[in-house]
């Protein structure tokens, strides 16, 4: 407004810009780290192509050592993200900038690491290190892809409901089902009990990741009861109709919870490859470096 002086802040953290925009980790500072990563890769590639190493490019040439050193330092630095992320220290650093650099410098390792091999791959500890590195990078690429697409879907599915609330509403429906089943016949009550006793979150990792509900007891019970209620007119005071309605609500809630857990699992599962593979990589790398210097 005309009468407002521009606001000054004593401490400048990353804030939304005056035009209301902000950038995610991929676009951070207008793709600064993408540019740096690409420049680094291009530089290495050009040097690789211009320098004539005899008899052929390999890890043992001066260029090979140089690329190898850059690669090792990068790998160690990239691993440090796990520490940085959890260490809340003072100072003007931003984890977003670290993530951005982690992504793009990590991608540039494909070029640096591969050029370091001089395309001499074989069945040895040296190639094992390269393979592990590629595994880490590929799992990372998967990670970026889910980070870029899933949050929107998760937010849409969550629809302002927290996970705790979802589980609470599931318990609430179960409680109502339990009450509503009291007047039912033994046969029907047994069906409802089957739904109540169902371990909603059972099943393995695969079930979690696929969001499959093929073996869902509630769905089976609902189908059975629906066969009976479907044909009858809903007079509004049939306890079975009420159970039918409640089961339908439970199914809706269940599918939301399953989708939520599925998204969460997909956002996390790759880390179970990425991080152990990183440690395996560091181990293999150590073996690789020691053996190289041992057999100098």
């Amino acid at each position: 407004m005309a009468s407002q002086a521009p606001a000054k802040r004593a401490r400048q953290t990353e804030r939304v810009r005056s035009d209301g925009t902000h950038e995610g980790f991929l676009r951070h500072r207008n793709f600064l780290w993408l540019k740096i990563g690409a420049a680094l890769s291009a530089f290495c590639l050009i040097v690789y192509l211009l320098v004539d190493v005899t008899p052929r490019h390999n890890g043992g040439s001066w260029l090979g050592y140089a690329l190898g050193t850059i690669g090792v330092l990068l790998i160690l630095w990239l691993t440090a993200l796990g520490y940085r992320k959890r260490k809340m220290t003072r100072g003007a650093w931003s984890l977003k900038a670290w993530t951005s650099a982690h992504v793009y410098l990590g991608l540039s390792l494909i070029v640096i690491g591969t050029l370091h091999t001089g395309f001499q791959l074989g069945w040895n500890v040296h190639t094992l290190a390269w393979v592990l590195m590629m595994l880490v990078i590929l799992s990372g690429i998967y990670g970026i892809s889910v980070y870029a697409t899933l949050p929107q879907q998760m937010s849409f599915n969550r629809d302002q409901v927290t996970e705790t609330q979802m589980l609470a509403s599931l318990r609430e429906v179960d409680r109502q089902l339990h009450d509503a089943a009291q007047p039912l016949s033994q046969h029907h009550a047994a069906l409802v009990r089957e739904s109540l006793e169902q371990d909603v979150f059972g099943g393995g990792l695969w079930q979690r990741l696929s969001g499959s509900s093929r073996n869902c007891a509630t769905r089976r019970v609902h189908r059975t009861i629906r066969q009976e209620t479907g044909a009858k007119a809903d007079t509004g005071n049939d306890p079975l109709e009420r159970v039918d309605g409640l089961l339908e609500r439970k199914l809706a809630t269940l599918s939301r919870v399953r989708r939520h857990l599925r998204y969460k699992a997909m956002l996390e599962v790759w880390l179970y490859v990425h991080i152990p593979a990183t440690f395996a990589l560091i181990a293999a790398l150590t073996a690789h470096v020691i053996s190289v210097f041992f057999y100098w």
Partner: protein
Amino acid sequence: MNRLTESCRIAIVGSGPAGLSAAARAAQLGLSHVLIEKTDHLSDTIYKYQKGKHVMATPSQLVLRSDLDFDAGKREAILGLWDEQVAGAGVTVRHNAEVLSIEGTGEPIAGSVMKIVTRKRDGTSETSEIQRRAPPYRLKLSDGSEIVADAVILAIGTQGNPNLMRCAGADLPHVQYQLDDPKEYIDEHIVVVGTGDAGIENALGLAEDAEQRNVVTIVNRGMEFATAKGANVKALLAARDAGRVNIQFNSETKAIEPGWITFTTRDGEERIRCDRVIARMGSAPPRGFVESCGIEFTSGDRLAFPRLSPVFESTAPGIFVIGALAGYPLIKHCMNQGYDVVEFVNGNASLKPADEPILEAKFKDLPGRRDVAEWLDYLRSGITILEGMNPLQMREFMLDSTVRAYRRGEVIFERNEPGSSLFAIADGSVSVQVNPDDPSITVPIGKGSIFGEVGLISGRKRGATIVAAEDAICVEISRTAALKLQSSVPAAKRAIERISTERQLLQMFGSGLTSADLTEVLDTARIEQVSAGKTVIDEGDEGTDILVIRQGSMVVEKQIGGKPVFLNYLPAGSYVGEMAVIAGGKRTASVRAAIKSEVIRIDGPTFRKLLDAKPQLLAKASADMAERQNLNAFVESKKDSFSNVVDMYSNVANFLIENGIGEATDVLLIDENLCVGCDNCEKACADSHEGLSRLDREAGRTYAHLHVPTSCRHCEHPHCMADCPPNAIHRGPDGEVFINDTCIGCGNCQRNCPYGVIRMDAVPPKKPGLLSWLLFGKGPGPGEPSKKWSYANAEPGVEKAKKAIKCDMCSGIEGGPACVRACPTGAAIRVSPEKFLSIARLERESA
């Protein structure tokens, strides 16, 4: 003298900390006295605290002066100690005695008549008069006996008495006004009367455990739950839907009989089973009773306190008022006053108040040798707005304020500094640098006047730099003290309003205006309260008034294609309505309050006259108008080509306003397009602040993937500050609202926050370092430790008190808010509303 009449020197009414301390002093001095308590135990207010509650001893700098001991500790320990010491001191106590009336028995005091105004529900009022009589006073008690005392000390607090049921059968033993332990009752039909928070919480407590098999019914006079918190209402409705609680709408209790209760409802009478009635219908403040004793209050304001002399004597000679009723809710204050008042009654004229050392320290660095009383008098007579205060108020006022001497040329505060305090000039003068680009242009403010009022009223940053023009002494009045001052001294309120309106206009329009030019405009200016959502200007209306937003914020909307489109967000300090004055014609857009606001309404024709007389002002106003017209035209042009984008922009803006962004100064938003739900923001928050997170990422509303998590908005006028007994909530140097160490854990701020961002919790034990967790799995890892871990690792034997915890915007932490720094994807951002709600957002989205 009849058998039931007892005579003594001092009658002390109420056995809270103030009354107990007074009685102990009287016993110590050997004065004949009686301590009257309406219940069967001492100190009922503290007695009613929940079991094991930690009672705090604040303010810590205040020295305790009492014959009773008191230190922070558990409720039981404190009550036990007092019971013991009261018995040991030989205090005469009358339990189960409620004072019904206090009347003077001496000669009528010439010219001393108490006027009592009783307001009725229908808005009319009735005035009755009481002729005051000299002491001794006769106290009639509820047990039929009487006490005649030379002096009466009223220490009855502000809790009042619960409103009682008035229907037939209300005196039956199963009608109760309190619920100590909801787990106590099983297999009962229980009716809760009253749907305020207390009633709802009781009903939910009774119905919580289905194993108790209680049938709980709550009675509501109407259909709405106007006096209860939203969360409680929601929980109640959920319990109703789950069949755990019955709600009896549109009902009033007609009769209670053993086993049954009868309601009058819209559809006739209804009789249901009832083994117990719990009535929670609020309590009547004790003001009526106090006034009937001949004690005058400072104003008709609901929050006003009795008018008192420096020795706590009320307008009824011989009746003294101390403690919460006198406006001092903290235990230490109360106990000191109990001691002091008995000394005064006993004729000790040289006793200095216990806060004397605190005030001495405040005045110690000032030039000129004056003692505390002289300084207080000097400030009171030198500063216009303080003139209406009595010496006791002045003491209390100075405890909340600071006074400082400034050398010539010294900066008092700078433009854009946050600050909500008011300054008053006791000596010397200051100059205001009105132009940020040229500090040599200044406006003087002289002795006795005030400055800094814009910060106080609008909660916004300081508008100009203020420098001492000569050696000066200024009082800095904290926001709380300034609000108290305004409510207790109406003249001060009027003076502050007039000055602030004038200054706001001068600052806004600038351009060579002087206060003389504004006299006519000020005479027509009115300050109006606007409730949230209310429209102050309707599109298409006639009318030329100018509205200046003094407090709160407004939203400008225009009907485009049959839908209201959000045009602009106006923070406090802006004005609207200039188009109709300058260009004529109807209003081109609607303006409504985003939150509860205050506007200054200036008469249009008068303002037009001013414009005609001041071409510079006209030019400035025209420029502002042109800017807004461009904006309107821009939005309208976009509406044709990018209708969806404009709708979206409009909806997002309205969503944010609904979620309190309108009163925010700095708020955390999460872009759910980017948020992967790692909760690193919460972990970083906990790790930066003693292990407790001050934000709940997942909770909160979302619109168009823009999520407003449960986290402090640092409101312009923080609701949490409204009722903080130790005054522990302040606005810090970067605009953050924070709670300092003097928090007593009362939970008022938590209840007052409409956004639910304050939690009450004890600081968890210290965790092992990150590396020992990473390498050896020691400790709970990053983030807030689980309750289980905290419990298992707590220092044995030490119970930490729960205190209020809220976001402090990482004040004092280099780098700024941890939540934003620790977000790996850039989803977490902090924004201030006027930037975020700007039209630039629309420009970008439609680009």
